[in-house]
């Protein structure tokens, strides 16, 4: 069930990138898609259990797998920095053209 929701998030984000005309909306759709991917990593990590793997005196409880969580942190940071970079680019474009429609910008800027 949760898995289905996560895949729905990824797909909705993907279709947002394709169908939204506004460049900022496209970037936000990409963010939605990456949120879905991150959620999927967290889901896979918690398949075996939900507890944090921290040393304590309890025995034999089901720990969550720390590897996917550690790995996805990198992807979160990278995704965040790419978005910042893209928004700066879009700001610069929007300053020079009075539009954010991607098809208009594409028409003006391809040979």
């Amino acid at each position: 069930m949760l898995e289905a929701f996560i895949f729905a998030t990824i797909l909705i984000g993907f279709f947002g990138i394709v169908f939204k005309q506004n460049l900022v909306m496209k970037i936000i759709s990409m963010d939605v898609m990456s949120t879905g991917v991150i959620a999927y990593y967290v889901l896979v990590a918690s398949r075996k259990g939900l507890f944090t793997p921290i040393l304590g005196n309890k025995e034999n409880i089901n720990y969550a797998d720390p590897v996917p969580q550690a790995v996805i942190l990198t992807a979160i940071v990278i995704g965040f920095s790419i978005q910042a970079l893209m928004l700066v680019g879009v700001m610069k474009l929007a300053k020079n053209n009075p539009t954010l429609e991607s098809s208009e910008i594409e028409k003006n800027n391809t040979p």
Partner: protein
Amino acid sequence: MNTLTIIWIAIPLFIGFTIYLLPKIDRYLALVVAIVSAGYALQIFSHTSPLNLNLLDNFAVILVVDHLSGFFILTNAIVTAAVILYCWNLEKTAFFYTQLIILHGSVNSAFICADFISLYVALEVIGIAAFLLIAYPRSDRSIWVGLRYLFVSNTAMLFYLVGAILVYQAHHSFSFAGLKGSPPEAIALIFLGLLTKGGIFVSGLWLPLTHSESETPVSAMLSGVVVKAGVFPLVRCALMIEEIDPIIRLFGVGTALLGVGYAVFEKDSKRMLAFHTVSQLGFILAAPEVGGFYALTHGLVKSALFLIAGVLPSRNLKELKHQPIYTPIWIALVIASFSISGFPLLSGFGAKILTMKNILSWQAIGMNLAAFGTAISFAKFIFLPHDSQTGQGKVKPGFWPAMALLLGGLIIANVVYFQAYTVANTIKPLATIFLGWLAYFLIFQRSIIKFPRAIEQFEHLIGGMSLMLILIFWMVFP
């Protein structure tokens, strides 16, 4: 050797940021990094057994350094050095050199890693550094081209991440070897990411616009090494897992034909070179065992050609026919064109022969057709008019050292496969080139067919990814 590898990986990133602190000596520092990489690559060739590094137990970083990586790293080092020499007197800021070196370092790390997460990090850093280089002139067009590149590559990498976690779920490790026995959707998703990033087949159609619209040194860098960072993992996977090998070979043939098909009809010199990159990547994939040598040759040739295209008086091949070019430039152009068409005495010949020897029988027709198309499209360059007087002063001072490095590399690289020089081997490429020229004069010189560019539009590229995903899934489904 282990320590050496780690130092060598860290050096570009360290020096890259140092360049920004010491802008006075930016060029020298950048050149030092390229030389260190070249030295390391030569070091690799002296070792016979591959070097395996497992950092942090089985969970995280796995590095494999063998002769295949050696070829790719050498390409990277030489092309970077040539680009730095080209930019020597061009008043680039320290920021440009910083990005160039970070790009160099991240491409290097993509060439040695053997697990999906390090590869992801390397590819994303490449994406960011390449975007900053493309957008360096800060014009509207360059920003749009860069944004488009970042969008396409980031979307592809998101699919790739989903694939990586599926591999982890099946094997509890991110290693490349885990691709065997993973569910087919994992392979499909990962391949979609790598194919898009590497510019292979239909998902690589973002490449022509990006490479042709960026600045001369940047396109040389992009075409010479950056796309190979996406191709290299595919080659590595094909060598490690035999189930994947036929798929990679099939994509190789498809890409070679697609790129050449566009290139033959293209009238813009830089776009033609970009389409040629697509087709040459196909050659690398068509024979994964010997892909390294082909990548070296192609990196040298293609960056040389892009640098030459930058000093030609016009980009339109029709106009070039009426404007004679300065003879030394023409000679450099001819050497590079001959190498890429596979003329003997240049390493393109050895690489083509080696590739043709290692392809399977069902690939032969397609690859020969692609080689024939290469000869046709480069006839456009070879038969341009030239003149020893005009345009003498236009050449930038860094141009000739860069050319000397790249074209010299082409001649020296011949020693890698000197066994290619037999009579039987020599006849076939010569015949191919001759037939290609004949076809050029009889048919293609007058052709005015123009392919529509609708498929290269941004939304179609992203939408095309979903179709490619279905196609790859159907190919890998048992």
